[in-house]
């Protein structure tokens, strides 16, 4: 299982990287953590002419906060993110989600940006980005910068709105208000496996009522699925009058799960419904 031949280059600036991507006209692939790309290369399912290794670009590192938003450099290693004190206090849901990604060893190389940009439907970080209302800033040589909301980023399994010549330079995650409760559940047969069903969510409670909700599924469709109907149903509700089962039903209504090697769509809906209801109850019963 050896990769097919390719040229390799490790630029040191974003400009250089974008130039290479543009020049390659679609024949280049970005190498970040490599934890997903390397197996694809080994199986020859991916055969780029050029591998652009972005791990040496300093501008793609770092975690910082400003103006109610957290900026995460895309090549931040997953284990670095877990250990980062800034991120721990600003984005606890994201940190919880990262802890579920792969294994300790893969998190030493795997990156935040890599997972977000890949668009694996059963992955934790894309769904968490959608739930939190995150966005990515991307750059291309020909068209400059643009910002894509996570909600608009994912088009299908491993298919995103990123053009072939675009590089993610920043991940922006809005900071949620005080009084936000975090909800994260994942059902996988073994640690590190693709989730059979998962959900990631943030629910802000003020004066005993839900003032904001961001909820997204993973493993329940071709992309992360924003549970819009459930979010809408939660808004303005007071905690002591919530019908968890009914909201769970609405949450599942937005999903489009597959039948695949591991589970059927009916299994996912059945389990997802229960998982959501229980998670909602436990999250909202807990003190903030």
């Amino acid at each position, binding site marked *: *299982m*050896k*990769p*097919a*031949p*390719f*040229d*390799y*280059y*490790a630029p040191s600036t974003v400009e250089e990287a974008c130039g290479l991507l543009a020049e390659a006209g679609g024949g280049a692939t970005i*190498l970040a953590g*490599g*934890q997903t790309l*390397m*197996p694809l*290369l*080994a*199986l020859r399912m991916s055969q780029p002419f050029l*591998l652009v*290794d972005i*791990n040496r670009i300093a501008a793609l590192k770092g975690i910082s906060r400003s103006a109610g938003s957290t900026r995460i450099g895309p090549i931040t290693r997953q*284990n670095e993110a877990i250990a980062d004190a800034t991120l721990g206090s600003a984005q606890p849901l994201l940190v919880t989600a990262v802890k579920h990604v*792969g*294994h*300790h*060893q*893969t998190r*030493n*190389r795997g990156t935040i940006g890599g997972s977000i940009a890949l668009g694996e439907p059963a992955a934790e970080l894309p769904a968490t980005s959608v739930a939190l209302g995150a966005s990515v800033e991307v750059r291309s040589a020909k068209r400059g910068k643009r910002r894509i909301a996570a909600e608009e980023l994912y088009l299908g399994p491993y298919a995103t709105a990123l053009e072939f010549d675009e590089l993610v330079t920043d991940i922006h995650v809005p900071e949620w208000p005080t009084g936000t409760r975090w909800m994260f559940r994942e059902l996988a047969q*073994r*640690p*590190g496996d693709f989730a059979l069903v998962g959900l990631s969510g943030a629910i802000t409670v003020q004066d005993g009522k839900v003032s904001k909700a961001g909820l997204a599924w993973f493993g329940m469709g071709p992309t992360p699925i924003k549970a819009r109907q459930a979010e809408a149903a939660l808004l303005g509700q007071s905690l002591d009058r919530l019908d968890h089962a009914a909201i769970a039903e609405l949450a599942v209504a937005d999903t489009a799960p597959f039948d695949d090697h591991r589970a059927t769509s009916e299994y996912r809906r059945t389990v997802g419904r229960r998982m959501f209801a229980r998670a909602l109850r436990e999250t909202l019963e807990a003190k903030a």
Partner: protein
Amino acid sequence: MSKHQIHLDINGRAHDASVEGRLTLCDFLRGDAGYTGVHVGCEHGVCGACTVMLDGLAVRSCLMLAVQADGCSVTTVEGLCSGDGALHPVQQTLREEHGLQCGFCTPGVVMTLAALTQGEQKPSSETLINAMSGHICRCTGYQGIRRAALRLAGEALAPVEDHG
């Protein structure tokens, strides 16, 4: 196909080589550098047999390219023994707990445990056992690996019963 000059430290010695872009780190370590203690079990990052330390962190060497290790410090299982041949505490503990049978997954297991027990503070058994979920062993049923992990975390074990 591009070729690259790399310079890296392997098991405490400087190493210079010219490598193709696509050469994986595990193939480089085994072939060019001669460290056959790095084992290749799956080449897609699931089994963990190829685990080495890169700048002190446990990584799957089948999921890296050799060229990416330029300027880095790599430790393989061969680099764990002290000069006088005494086993590293991780190796010693695994031996005492009968944590291996065929030995193929073992270097990877050793490197993850060694990476996590490097610091002054003992890691928790939860940390070590969680990290062991990144290794597949087909022989032992993980019994000895689990006991070794608990001991390395400083936990006392129920003694293994001897039978008449």
